[in-house]
């Protein structure tokens, strides 16, 4: 399962910009910009909508700019005395789950991609199997299990089931398998131990993959609704999506203003994390001293 790249020699430090001087660049910008408009329009509407009243949001056809912009939705959400708790819980769970995945998915992915051991096939099969089982089926048995372990309404109960996700392992495995084996061979020749190879040589090369993994995991954890809902028995363990559903959705009607304000609040940290991590997406795969 390890692959070797066609050119055996090592990679020179990659230059990120200007590798292709494309003549039709202006037209590329135009095409990308048109696509951009389509992509961001609903998001823009969502943010603008969070400043509208529920009544205005129920109008047809929908309006774009708020007729009389109001901060009332945000005021109401932040007014809830428990808001910092919900926000804090979401942050705690999402950060821990993301860190856990960054570390453990990488270790497992590396082992599957580059190391020869008897369990390769089995572990990869388990990873894929977990990935492919529809979540709805295992939901209730998982909850009963967690309850029997007395983990309901605890932070471990919220975090542990997601600490290493199969999608993360799969991502890291694929990415790492594209790295040249020679790096590892050379390091072994130099006498480096397995773990040092992993931490000192492989991980630094995984910038883009780790950034991708981090943003994916953070997003999934941050927006997770159903599991925290059943795993938390008291309000002080609620995460943000639960709290927002609580405030905005009634038995027979929803308050769309609160809903959109909540959705915006939920979206902002994910965007922030994305912005922070995004320079790693195009980090060159630079290596040193292999030649």
């Amino acid at each position: 399962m390890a692959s070797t790249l066609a050119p055996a020699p090592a990679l020179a430090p990659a230059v990120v910009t200007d590798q292709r001087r494309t003549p039709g660049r202006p037209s590329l910008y135009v095409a990308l910009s048109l696509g951009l408009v389509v992509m961001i329009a609903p998001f823009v509407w969502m943010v603008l909508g969070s400043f509208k009243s529920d009544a205005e949001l129920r109008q047809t056809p929908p309006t774009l700019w708020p007729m009389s912009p109001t901060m009332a939705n945000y005021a109401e959400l932040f007014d809830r005395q428990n808001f910092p708790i919900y926000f804090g819980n979401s942050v705690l769970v999402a950060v821990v789950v993301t860190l856990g995945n960054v570390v453990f998915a990488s270790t497992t992915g590396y082992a599957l991609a580059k190391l020869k051991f008897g369990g390769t096939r089995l572990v990869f099969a388990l990873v894929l199997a977990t990935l492919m089982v529809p979540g709805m089926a295992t939901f209730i048995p998982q909850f009963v299990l967690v309850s029997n372990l007395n983990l309901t309404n605890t932070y471990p109960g919220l975090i542990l089931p997601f600490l290493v996700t199969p999608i993360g392992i799969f991502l890291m495995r694929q990415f790492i398998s594209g790295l040249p084996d020679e790096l590892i061979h050379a390091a072994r020749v130099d006498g480096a131990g397995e773990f040092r190879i992993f931490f000192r040589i492989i991980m630094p090369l995984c910038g883009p993959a780790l950034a991708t993994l981090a943003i994916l995991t953070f997003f999934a954890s941050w927006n997770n609704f159903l599991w925290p809902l059943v795993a938390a028995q008291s309000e002080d363990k609620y995460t943000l999506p639960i709290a927002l559903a609580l405030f905005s959705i009634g038995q027979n009607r929803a308050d769309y203003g609160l809903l959109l304000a909540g959705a915006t609040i939920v979206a902002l940290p994910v965007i922030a994390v994305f912005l922070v991590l995004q320079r790693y997406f195009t980090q060159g795969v630079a290596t040193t001293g292999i030649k």
Partner: protein
Amino acid sequence: MTAAATTGTAEPATARSRAGNGPARRSGTSPARRRESRAAWILCSPFLALFAVFTAGPVLAAFGMSFTDIRSTDLRSPLAVGVVGIENYAQLLGDDRFWRAVTNTGIFVVIGIPLTMACALAAAVGLNSIPRLRGLFRVGYYLPVVTSIVAAAVVWRFLLQPDSGLLNTALGWIGVDGPRWLEDTTWALPSIIAMAVWRNLGFLMVVFLAGLQTIPNEVLEAGQVDGASRWQRFRYLTLPLLRPTLLFGAVITMIGYLQFFEEPFVMTQGGPLDSTLSISLYVYEQFGFGNYGFASAASYVLFVLIVGVTAIQFRLLREKG
């Protein structure tokens, strides 16, 4: 330690390049191999531990449930249920609505996956080629992923409104009488597909961007020097090197799309007349009705489908050499 390391390095190049799939494996284990093997098991142990505790049991339990007639009313005494063998599965395969869901899911996947992957790849390559404003476009293309499905649904519904929607109005300018999109049994599913492509493009684009970074410049420059056109460089150099990433993208998107749920749930509730009913929606309904045994059976049929399709993809996109 050094001596052992040197003996260890004699093997690797040959044995390893034969991947794990041939009888070329040696039977003896050198200390280096053992060290490697031990390290690998240690590195995998967190996943295996969590799997054993949180996943293995529930997966088996759910599988077991699919052979019983367990319902939500049995929740307090789950072992006191009737074992019905494959009756759930038989009933499932005899249900017209289920087959409708399978067909819809199939169409969704066959059209949606290539479309999403092509668009995401195009976006990634495009973004990789522009020197400025990369960050802006990256964030922008990723925004649909973080836009609440409720907000997205309102905007898309407005777009697809039969009488006053943007799309039909625009079509009207060029003299085309647009269909009733979400209310038309023929056009509802394509509308849902378009929305899914829109939503999932950003995530795949990010993955492909990461993959594009592993392609060394010299390779492409060498190709340019050899006179290959941009398209040829893309097709014969970039794409093959992108295989692992493409495989990941294809598998993940396929697994996600086979279980597509949110778009029809929010936009059409599976209608009109079951034309956008997906397998996941069908399963969700059954869980909602409390037919846990039956719903588990449907989930595992979906699982088998996912496994089958994924196996095919691995075969097609498997790394060579």
